[in-house]
């Protein structure tokens, strides 16, 4: 049992399990799943669906944090991607009253993703080529990016009328939400890359000791650039899911505080901010914890304002548990010995 407790995923998994148990205590039908309208239906499905954008962004953030970086611009990139997609799809009513999109859907989506990836690349270049600290480099895009998104949308909320777009955030495939499939595929793809290529080892060595990795011949610059680009791309995917879900692009509010949630998800999952070792599964669990918590609060009828306070308490709890000094303090108190 002790060995199990030392596994990196132990605490995140236990936390999630406790939350699920608590939710079902408050709401007996919490874990119930039914088949309705051609897809699975239930609170759990709801949570998975809503968590999808966060999972996607957090996966990208995990790798960035693992190389000792940080990307606080993901919220702004979400807004930018949503704006680009909404603008390109637009949606004009044709003579017959049906909605057509200005550009083919695939082109709009691809462009939005390309722009998002370019944002990630921009961040990466600032960090790698200009040698800026990650928090500073991404702070720039965080500040300017919102402005850019607002510029694109003219400060308005752009509504999208083109129905096929909605399936990203609202559709179902084989009974499960499309968004969930997207998140799951991204995770699976990353997992495949980690296990079949040396990327995991390289990322861990760059994060563990960047200079040593460089001396050992690891192409740190190229890999770091890729990681940041991927993070931008992930934010773009999340932006598409989010805007599809609400059928609009809101440059002001889209992705607000998302970077903080993503960082929280990554750390809840067990990846340290100092870089090096990382866990993708932990991040997924972390994102699910955040979403389950939000849902639980909502379903309890507690005002949503409490959400922030609870998130805060959760962050403190996890941080303290991960702190060696705190654990020492607790075990010393438990043993009752004075040092």
């Amino acid at each position, binding site marked *: 049992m002790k060995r199990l407790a030392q596994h990196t995923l132990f605490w995140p998994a236990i936390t999630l399990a406790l939350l699920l148990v608590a939710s079902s205590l408050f709401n007996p039908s919490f874990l119930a799943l039914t088949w309705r309208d051609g897809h699975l239906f239930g609170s759990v499905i709801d949570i998975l669906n809503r968590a999808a954008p966060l999972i996607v962004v957090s996966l990208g953030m995990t790798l960035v944090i693992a190389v000792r970086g940080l990307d606080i611009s993901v919220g702004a990139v979400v807004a930018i991607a949503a704006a680009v997609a909404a603008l390109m799809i637009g949606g004009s009513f044709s003579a017959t009253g049906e909605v057509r999109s200005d550009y083919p859907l695939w082109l709009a989506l691809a462009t939005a993703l390309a722009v998002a990836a370019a944002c990630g690349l921009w961040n990466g270049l600032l960090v790698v080529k200009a040698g800026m600290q990650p928090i500073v480099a991404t702070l720039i895009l965080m500040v300017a990016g919102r402005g850019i998104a607002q510029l694109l949308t003219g400060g308005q909320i752009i509504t999208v009328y083109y129905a096929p777009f909605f399936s990203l955030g609202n559709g179902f495939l084989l009974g499960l939400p499309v968004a969930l499939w997207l998140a799951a595929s991204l995770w699976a793809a990353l997992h495949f890359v980690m296990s079949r290529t040396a990327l995991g080892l390289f990322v861990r060595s760059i994060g563990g000791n960047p200079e040593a990795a460089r001396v050992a011949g690891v192409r740190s610059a190229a890999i770091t650039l890729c990681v940041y680009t991927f993070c931008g791309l992930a934010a773009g995917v999340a932006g598409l899911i989010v805007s599809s879900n609400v059928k609009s692009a809101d440059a002001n509010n889209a992705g607000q505080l998302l970077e903080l949630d993503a960082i929280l998800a990554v750390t809840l999952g067990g990846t340290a901010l*100092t870089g090096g070792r990382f866990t993708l599964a932990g991040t997924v669990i972390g994102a699910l914890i955040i979403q389950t918590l939000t849902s639980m609060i909502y379903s309890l009828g507690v005002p949503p304002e409490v959400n922030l306070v609870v998130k805060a308490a959760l962050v403190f709890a996890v941080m303290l548990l991960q702190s060696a000094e705190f654990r020492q303090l607790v075990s010393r108190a438990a043993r009752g010995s004075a040092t």
Partner: protein
Amino acid sequence: MNRKLLPLTVTIALFVAMAAFGAIRYDGFFSPQVFLNLLIDNAFLCIVAVGMTFVILSGGIDLSVGAVIALTTMISATLLDAGWNPYAAMALVLVLGAAFGALQGFLIQRFSLAPFLVTLAGMFLARGCCYLISTESIPIDDATYAAIAQARIPVGLGASLTIGGLIALAVVAVAMRIAHSSEFGRTVYALGGGESSARLMGLSVDSTKIGVYLLSGACAALGGIVMTFYMLSGYSLHAVGLELDAIAAVVIGGTLLAGGVGYVAGTLFGVLILGIIQTLIAFDGSLSSWWTKIVVGALLLLFCLLQRLFEGRTPKSAQGTA
């Protein structure tokens, strides 16, 4: 000593250049009141940024300041509504702000937690408490507050300063003194230079670490008080994103985000530059206000690149993320 002053010189030069640009291009720009308004409109940002300067100099970061400002306005408004003496209310929120900061500092120091995460959680907590108090705006109609808000102190040349602006200047002056002439201030710089080295030297690293966050919390509370003069209301959505503006002001003011290098005076100019961007855009009239964000971002980029060039000549170990 001269090389250390280079970033500050650049900042001041930029400010002068922008002021000159504005004076040439727009009528009425070069009036004393316009310049004093830079300080008046950004007095609370200035106070908060000064507190942030100390935190960043020590190698940390404080993301909770915007939320603490909002919480300060909410608590002030609530207390005043309940009939508290205005000065007692101000004293209480100052103490609360300092205590909040000190608590964050304690967690960071005692349990070796990442400042980024702790103050992030602090931000959530403070904002959440704001919402718990009320999601609506609470107006302040206390007579003392109104009087302070309207007071104008003439400084000659037909221009006048508000109490808030005066407080901001006083805070800058006191902070400059602390940074340069006190043991605490020098230990802050030492912390930024290398915590383990500072510790081995026997410097009071632990209490200083807690101290900078206490100071930042107190400055945030003071900034909140000044904001209540300015807004005459308590509102949960006050100062959203202000911490980023504060960080931008500090960086543009020449302080390295990695810590150890920088001047409080620089932060003052950083705030003025942020203010002047707003003013220039307002004077122009044709640019939408979100250009401000883009320009601030571009300036931030410029300064960070300059800092990189400067750093390239002085060896300093990288300290990763804040």
